[in-house]
Every structure is written in C-alpha cells, then in structure tokens.
C-alpha cells in the first residue's frame, strides 16, 4: 500500500530530486499532501482526483497521504501531478509500471487526464541522465538536439498500460542559422561603428555606444547576434536550460544567440534574478548572448550597480533565507546612451540645451566602476542623407553573413594561437614578444603616458588590439591594430 516515485523541482535553473511518497492506508477517506508545497502543489489534489476519475480509475476509499521528500525543501509548481497520480494507482494496485524505481516522472495533469509539459524540462532531463533514470514526460521529442536522454512518452493518463521507452538523441539541430530577419546590410552608413561591433563580437567584448537620438544605436545592437559565432553544443544546452526553466517552448530556440533588451524601468530583481521561487533575470536570459541596455543612464542606479559582480564573474549568486542559487550570466553587455539629457551634445545641426553640470551628472549615473567594465566605446553620429538613400549595392555595407565569416575566422585563429580566450589574456601575455611587435609595444607605452591610460584600460586596449590582429590573421599585434584599438578606448569620464 506504498509507492515511491522520483520527480524533481526547480531551484534556479537546476533540477533538485524530489521523491513523491504515496501511502494508502485504512482510515477515514482523505487525501493529504505534505512536504512544503506552494498553492499549485496543494491544488494537485483536485487535478489528480478529477484526472483519475476521468480515466476510469478509482480514488481509493481510504486515507491517502502524499509526502514530497525531502520535506523541508520548498516545492513549487505543477510537475508533481503525474507522479502523484501514478503513485496512487500503483499503491492501490490499480496499475503497475515496469522499473518504477528507475523513472523520473514529470508532468502536469489536466482534469481529463491529459498530461502536459512543465517548466524546467531540460534541467530534469539532465538530472535524469546524471542519475541514470528514464524520464517519463509528455512530448520528449522536443528535447531532440538539445540533450540525449532515455524517455518514456506519456500524453494521457489512460496510456498507463501501454507505455513504451523511446530514446532521444542529441544530434545537432539544423545548423542553418536564422538571423530573425535582421541583417547589417539594412543599416545605412555607420560603417565605422559596424566594424567596431564586428571586433566586439569576435572577442565577445562589452561595448558602450554613444550618439544622439536617431542614429540607429538600437538597430545596430539588435543585429549583433546575427554576426556572432554560432552557439557551441554546450552553450546551446545552457541557453536551452534557461529557456526551459522560464517555461518557454523549446521549439523556438534557434542556434542564434539570445538578445535581450529590457526596458530601463526594469527592477534589480528583473535584471539580476530573484523572487520566490528564485527566477532568472534578464542577464541570465541573455546568457551566451547579448544584453542590451538602451538609454543606460535612465536605469535605476541600484539596478546598474547590481550588474557589476555578475559581469565580472560570469554568473549571478542569489542568496535568500530559504535557498541560494547560482545562475549563469556570461553576456556580451551592450550599453547605449545619448551624450547628454537632451541628446544633442556635439550635434552639428541641433543645439544642445544642457548645462555642463547636467551632462556630467547624466554621464555619472552609470558610475565609474560599471563604466570600467566596458571594453570599447563607440560614437555613432547621424548618417548623412545621401547614405540613407543609397540604393546601389556598392555603397551598401557588408551583410551579416560576411561579417559573421570575419568573426568566425578571428575566433578560429584565436583558438589556434592563444591558450585562453583573448578576453581573459593579461598584461604579461599581451605584451610578450610572441604576441606584440616591438614597435607596437613602444607605441602602447607612449600612448599610455600620453592618454593617461590606467593599467586596466591599458589591458583592455591590448585585448582589443589583439582581436583586431586575430581578425587579420596576424601573429603579432602591429601598430595599425593598436591604433584602431585606441580609437575605441573608454574615455567618457576623462575630463570634467
């Protein structure tokens, strides 16, 4: 009169094993669910009861106790429904399932007995693999191409008698990368900024774009994923983990890197993650992709400052009294801002009406320490009209496909020639004889003195120069690479 089935609950984007213990004993008829479940878990009683009856089963006329072990961990959601129903059927002898102890059961029940997918499917599949279990869930074919897994599909509770195992393979999905229709060829002018974005994409560097309204900052940023190198297998799995934990269907995850552009009214929790249960924030949703913060000075200062640690570490540690989770947060940060509150500082046609103190305080809203996390600053200016109306192909810029080829070539060259990603190279390595030509090194020293570069800024310039050299397949960083890198250096707060 007892049955135990394994299922899982989400903590952040990781699945934690949970055992559904069903005890059916004589006593006054009752149905108790214990083990720190939230409202959705408690309501399983009604769903399970209705589903069992709809499928012609009987709810045993005895005292049913369902315990979710470990009982001290908070549990959320509807994924336990299927395990509870199965447990009741097995414990009351109405059904038997082969190898019940080797299953990981996951699914929400409808009142008619239909089973549906729940959030965190990919995390649970990974847990099932780790524990050598078979994942019982509806529509396991959606895991195809993401993660290999032994599965038992179950679309309806009435199928319980004729379940069949079905392996899911992790064969790569269609490699064709959809660019979502966004292409750099659509951008008029701005060739200099596009070139710089290409460098940034090759090194996955953080970029800050400054320019008056209407210069196409958003247009440029939204096209970044179309030129970034395609996701690797592991990266793809990580993106799928996050997406499934957020309850998104897995079908629309393509090989293109994520692009997230939260509105500037976003709260710190919305950006970083948090809440109860802890949900990933925008920075985790943008993991392995682009986090675009438009109108960056308009974000609340606490929100911006909260970004500092995740950007440095590549992950977010969220600590609450009940639980603490680590969420991945390796993003390419792209910030954009107008040069001043009115937006026309430095514009040739429109006069800027801001007082210098206003401009200063506007720029200071981002704050030095966060500004320090940017590797490059790009200035976008309004393109002249003739560029906007250029229709002949020779006047158009490079397409995303061409730029992407450059990015991939640079990445491949870097992988063959450096031990670590360029983003992580330190000063000693960047300045070693095998990496930089003597003339360029001298120039770097001179520019450090002349332009008052801080040690950190110096390293950033060195890295950018290295990436430009990689793009040209040059073994040594030469003067020309360095000069280009210096034109992207961060100097927004140099003068007061």
């Amino acid at each position: 009169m007892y049955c135990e089935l394994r299922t899982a609950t989400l903590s952040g984007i990781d699945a934690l094993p949970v055992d559904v213990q069903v005890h059916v004993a004589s006593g006054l008829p009752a149905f108790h669910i214990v083990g720190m479940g939230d409202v959705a878990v408690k309501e399983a009683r009604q769903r399970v009861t209705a589903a069992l009856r709809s499928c012609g089963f009987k709810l045993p006329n005895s005292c049913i106790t369902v315990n979710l072990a470990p009982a001290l961990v908070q549990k959320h959601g509807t994924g336990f429904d299927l395990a509870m129903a199965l447990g009741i059927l097995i414990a009351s002898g109405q059904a038997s399932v082969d190898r019940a102890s080797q299953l990981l059961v996951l699914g929400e029940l409808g009142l008619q007995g239909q089973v549906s997918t729940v959030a965190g499917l990919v995390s649970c599949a990974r847990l099932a693999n780790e524990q050598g279990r078979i994942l019982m869930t509806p529509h396991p074919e959606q895991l195809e191409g993401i993660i290999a897994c032994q599965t038992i599909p179950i679309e309806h509770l009435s199928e319980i008698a004729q379940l069949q195992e079905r392996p899911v393979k992790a064969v790569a999905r269609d490699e064709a990368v959809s660019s979502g229709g966004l292409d750099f060829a659509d951008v008029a002018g701005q060739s200099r900024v596009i070139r710089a974005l290409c460098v940034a994409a090759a090194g996955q560097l953080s970029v800050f774009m400054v320019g008056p309204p209407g210069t196409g900052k958003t247009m440029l940023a939204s096209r970044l994923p179309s030129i970034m190198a395609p996701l690797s297998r592991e990266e793809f799995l990580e993106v799928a983990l996050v997406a499934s934990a957020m309850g998104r269907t897995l079908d629309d995850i393509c090989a293109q890197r994520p692009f997230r552009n939260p509105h500037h009214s976003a709260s710190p929790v919305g950006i970083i993650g948090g809440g109860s249960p802890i949900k990933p924030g925008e920075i985790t949703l943008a993991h392995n992709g682009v986090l675009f913060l438009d109108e960056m000075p308009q974000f609340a200062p606490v929100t911006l400052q909260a970004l500092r640690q995740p950007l440095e570490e590549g992950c977010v540690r969220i600590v609450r009294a009940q639980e603490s989770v680590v969420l991945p947060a390796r993003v390419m940060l792209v910030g954009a801002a107008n040069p001043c509150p009115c937006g026309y500082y430095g514009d040739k046609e429109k006069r800027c009406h801001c007082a210098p103190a206003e401009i200063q305080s506007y720029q200071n809203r981002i704050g030095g320490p966060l500004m320090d996390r940017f590797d490059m600053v790009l200035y976008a200016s309004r393109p002249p009209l003739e560029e906007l109306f250029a229709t002949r192909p020779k006047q158009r810029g490079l397409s995303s496909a061409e730029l992407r080829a450059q990015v991939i070539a640079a990445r491949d060259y870097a992988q063959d020639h450096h031990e670590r990603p360029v983003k992580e190279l330190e000063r000693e390595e960047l300045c070693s004889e095998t990496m930089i030509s003597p003339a360029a090194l001298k120039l770097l020293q001179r520019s450090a003195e002349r332009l008052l570069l801080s040690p950190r800024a110096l390293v950033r310039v060195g890295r950018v120069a290295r990436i430009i050299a990689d793009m040209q397949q040059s073994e040594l960083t030469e003067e020309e690479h360095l000069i280009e890198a210096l034109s992207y250096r961060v100097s927004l707060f140099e003068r007061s």
Partner: protein
Amino acid sequence: MESASFELETSDEFYPRQLQDYEEAPELLFGRGDPACLLPGVALIGARNATPYGISAATAIATWACELGLTVYSGCARGCDQAAHRAALAAEGRTVAVLGCGADVVYPARAAGLLDRIAAQGCVLSTYDWGTPPAAYRFRERNWLIAALSQFVVVVEARIPSGTFSTVEHALSLGIGIAAVPGSIFCPGSQAPNRFISEGAVPLTSREDLCAAVERFLPQVTVDLVMRPTDTATEQGCTDELLRALVAQPSTPEELSAALGLSAREVALRCSRAEIEGSVERYPDGSYGLSQSELLLRAR
C-alpha cells in the same frame, strides 16, 4: 588652505587706484589673499560653456599677460574664466578672482580648490559682505567690478546673447578698452567676439597683438616686444591635411571623411594616431579637435 582675509576702505593703501576715478566705486572691498595684487591688468571674460578653442585661447592670453607683468582679472566661472586663472597660476603670475558672493563663499562649488590656490597666490575679491550667498543679480554687479579693475577687457568666447555683454557694456561706459579673440564664423561661441571686432574692438590673434593692446591701454607698462622664433614644428604641422581640417573646428571622422576624401575608418585611424602623438584630442561627443598643446603651439 586658509589665507589672510582683508577689508579695504577707499582710503586704504591697497585700495585699487584704478577704482578711485569712478563714482560708483564701492566703499568697502572684501577679500582673501594678498591685496597688493590689485594692480593694473587685463580682464579675461568668456562663456562657461567654452569650446576647447576658447579654453586654449584663454590659457594663452592669460599666460602672455602674466609674462608681461599684468594682473589677470576674471570671475572664476567655469570655462574661460577658470582657464585664465589656472594659466595665470601656472605662469606664476598675479590673478584676481572677482566673485558675485562673499569672498569666503565657495561658488561655484567645484572651484573650491582653485579659489584656495588663487587666494594663496593672488587674491579673491568681492564687494559683498562675508557670507553673502550667490544670486543672479549680484553677478551683473560683479561684472562692473571686473571691468573697472582692469585696463582692458578681453572677450574670449561668448554667444549672442550672453552675460559677457554686461561686462562689455560696463567697460564701455567706464571708457575701458575692449579686445576680442576672433573665431570661426560657424562657431556659435565666437559670435560675440567676432561682432565686437567688427564694431571696433581690438582683435587679439597673437602675443604681439596683446603687446600692442597693452601699449595702447596701459601706457605706464613698458612692454619688451621680443619676437619669439616661430616653431618649425608648427610649420610642418600646418602641412598635415588632417590637422588643417581640424584647426577650423572639431569634427567627427564621418564629417572629415568627405573633406579629406578618405573612408571614415581611415580618418578615425589617423585621428587616433595623431592623438597618441598629442596633436589631436577626442572630445566627449566623439569628435576630434586639435589638442590644447597643439593650439598653444600654433599661437604666436
């Protein structure tokens, strides 16, 4: 840094002699620093929202004026004023900041350090009692004092209309000479000085112009008109098409690309190289212009 405070009555030894001619002269002056600085000199006035050109011009003229032994009077406002004070301090000359609030009040707040240095090396002066807070109307009255203390007023950079006009009007009513630094006809900041020049102000384009102005307005000061040798580097620099394009006004690489017939990227690379060499600076809006040192090098 605490510097000595002083109060000057009209009968005082240090009460500026140049004020004694005027009926409106204040009966009491308050100050910090050395009242012996209140000697004949030149007033530099200009916009707070100055361009790098204006800052460089103010720096150059204040430096020359100190070399000629003149006191540099200004208002310690941001931009041209502060550039003039800083240059005078750097040249170890005399400089006087005339404030529109009490001489012990720090205004503008960011200039606290500068005011202390001025008080240590020159003096900070006001007609207002200790502790008087700043107010807009006081600055118009302060402008009278700046004009009256000086032998001639140099307008560095100002738009039309602007507060600079009140100083110039005071100077004209007191019979004090006006000089102005000409600028680009396209630059809003040079509208006022160009207008003054067309109406008869002395154009200041070089050190000799300043010497000539001193001879005219301060006959008591003897000026040694030593011609400085022209820097050969300047001559060479003039041949560089990039610097020649930038000397007129700061521009973005996109704007320059049309003028120079190069791609924007090529221009940006050239600007970046010139920046390392020190002849060009990147401004906060991403445009490039000649650096201050290059502009001063070009001033003769």
